[in-house]
């Protein structure tokens, strides 16, 4: 034990011990061999990360939080994302970053009396929002409910029989865009927040993928990208927004944004357009003349799980 006092502490003891007197040589050699073997095994073990790291650019790694980005930085990021889509999928996508419109707060209402449970809304969501095809992801789940009860435990989402079954009613559930959103509170890095027009959004480039928001959401409205979403090039919806339907990276959360790439441009959300019965009513809660306000004033609306104090901007009602 007489190593030089100048030897750097970071050096492995194995290498330095080589200068020890004779008795230790064999042991030292063994240690050295072990360390080499260990290092080789270590390199082999972490090799898969290299494939993945090739996909993550330095710019992406260093990208700042959405709300800290200057317009110029955002333009650069969007150009990068568009270039990525072109390179990876050969599709020229257009990614916008529409902002909340002043005087607009979105509300959604759903008429449970006329929803027939055809799930066209879920399908439209899947296509509009560039969801992963193999997992059939969608922000909307349609629950087939037993008439006479609101007990979700008696609900079913995987029904395949012709609908509507007269003994049932159908309740599509998506993000309720709560005014008091538990998912936003729990996020450790503020990767999800509520915008001025009421939409709860996710910065897919800031989310760390801890899934705490998914645990916190009482409506099963959040989805995790368990893999890198796969969408055939010809099916990619090229009309995209940074905070909504652009192609998502692996390992981050996503959620319904009321199709903000459409609705912030004044258009109706894709799920509403797909609805064959008109069970869905969408509009501006701040406009007293809007359809959604008419529903709130004239129908006996309710919200899901009101007792949790989440204050949804999504309402349900029955005609009869």
């Amino acid at each position, binding site marked *: 034990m007489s190593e030089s006092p100048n030897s750097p502490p970071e050096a492995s003891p194995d290498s330095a011990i080589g200068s020890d007197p004779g008795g230790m040589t064999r042991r030292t050699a063994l*240690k050295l061999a072990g360390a080499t073997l260990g290092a080789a095994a270590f390199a082999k073990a972490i090799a898969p990360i290299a494939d993945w790291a090739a996909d993550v650019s330095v710019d992406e790694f260093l990208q700042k939080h959405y709300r800290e980005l200057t317009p110029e930085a955002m333009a650069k990021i969007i150009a990068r994302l568009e270039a990525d889509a072109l390179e990876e999928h050969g599709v020229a996508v257009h990614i916008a970053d529409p902002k909340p419109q002043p005087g607009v707060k979105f509300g959604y209402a759903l008429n449970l009396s006329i929803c027939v449970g055809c799930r066209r809304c879920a399908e439209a969501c899947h296509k509009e929002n560039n969801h992963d095809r193999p997992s059939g992801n969608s922000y909307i789940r349609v629950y087939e409910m037993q008439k006479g009860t609101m007990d979700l435990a008696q609900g079913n989402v995987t029904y395949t029989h012709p609908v509507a079954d007269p003994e049932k009613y159908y309740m599509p559930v998506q993000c309720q865009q709560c005014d008091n959103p538990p998912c936003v509170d729990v996020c450790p890095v503020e990767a999800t927040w509520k915008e001025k027009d009421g939409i709860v959004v996710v910065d897919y480039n800031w989310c760390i993928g801890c899934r705490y928001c998914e645990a916190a959401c009482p409506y099963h409205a959040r989805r995790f990208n368990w893999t890198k979403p796969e969408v055939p090039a010809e099916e990619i919806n090229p009309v995209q927004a940074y905070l909504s339907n652009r192609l998502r990276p692996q390992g981050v959360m996503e959620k319904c944004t009321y199709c903000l790439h459409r609705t912030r441009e004044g258009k109706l959300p894709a799920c509403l357009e797909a609805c064959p019965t008109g069970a869905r009513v969408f509009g501006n809660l701040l406009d007293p003349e809007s359809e959604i306000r008419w529903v709130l004033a004239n129908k006996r609306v309710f919200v899901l799980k009101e007792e949790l104090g989440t204050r949804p901007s999504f309402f349900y009602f029955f005609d009869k």
Partner: protein
Amino acid sequence: MSSPGTSSSLQLAADPRRGHFANYVRFLWRAGIAATDGNGWFYAWMTLLTAVGLVGLNAWAVQIRDGMAVTAMTDHVSWGLYIANFTFMVGLAAGGVMMVIPAYLYHDEEMHDVVIVGEMLAIAAIVMCIGFVVVDLGRPDRAWHMIPGIGVFNWPLSMLTWDVVVLNGYLLLNLHICGYLLYMRFLGRRPNPRWYVPFVFLSIVWAISIHTVTAFLYCGLGGRPFWNTALLAPRFLASAFVSGPAFIIIGLQILRRVAGVRMSDKPLSILTNIMRVTILINLLMVVSEVFTEFYSGSSHTAAARYLYFGLHGAHGLVPWIWTSVVFNVVAAILILRPGVVAHKRQLTLVCVLAFVAVWIEKGMGLIIPGFIPSTMHELVEYSPSLIEWQIMAGIWALGLLVYTIALKVGLPVLTAPRSAKH
């Protein structure tokens, strides 16, 4: 293992002519040597842990490359084995402090010798906690987003940020206490109580906080009735103070046998007495919880029904939880017997049973039923995938590696005569 050479190398290597910096570097150097030097068994053990750790590392690398689809987690059960182990490990870290309370709060001199065993356990457990959180991240490359200053730290709103603060704080506290005591030993000086006793007391409070905050992580979620109970934090603490002492009792016995640490039965009997109380409190809380769930019969009991009896033909957790219940009850009965400390085998059995029982109860038995049925009452089961088991084993191996090294470095303190320290 505790060869005289190792021991003396740490004790008498300080050069009084040098400054603290040089001495500290020499101390780390000696610690490094002490940590990598040992007999054949030691090398075999370390090699085994390294091998298992590498298997876990490889599994994690695959998970990063292919996405968390390689786990059995889903959008319905979005936390699984990792967070289950994380929760348990926080308890183990907090439980380590159970050595400290009798030693410093009640001035039990004999406990002072072994208190470092508990603190080192806390260090190893926190390292595992951090490991389990990191492998649960979908984007570990973005972990820096959580660093205050350069990232965005949603404190105080997010309980997860509280957890980051308290866990890292606890790690630093224990690193300081252990490091200081060992360094003083290295210098051959008496530790100055001013530099560690306040931290020891702080660590006691802090130990309670880490587990309370971790419980708040879950019980603050109104949408998950299984977790949304005020009893969660007390339950966490009670079970932590079962698993912590249980692990230390097992550890001390191994140290006595393998490393020849001289030690009376007193610490063992103190820890056993602690367990006698905490295991009963824990059982009482489980009973209260079960009663509240089942007697009311509200729809919120679906998760508890799934856990204990199965629901609509799905009963993946039933064998787990009943194993835990049986182990818990048997351990409670056995540990209440007066002569249990004298019967070392029985004591070890009790501790193993209690440890496994708490691991299930606080891990799979607590995290998974929070998701089954889902918030929208969909019933999707979860059973960990091979990758998850591999990563879990890897992190356990890492933790044991840290613990072994810490003990190896700390052995001189343990084996030295008590008078030398006080």
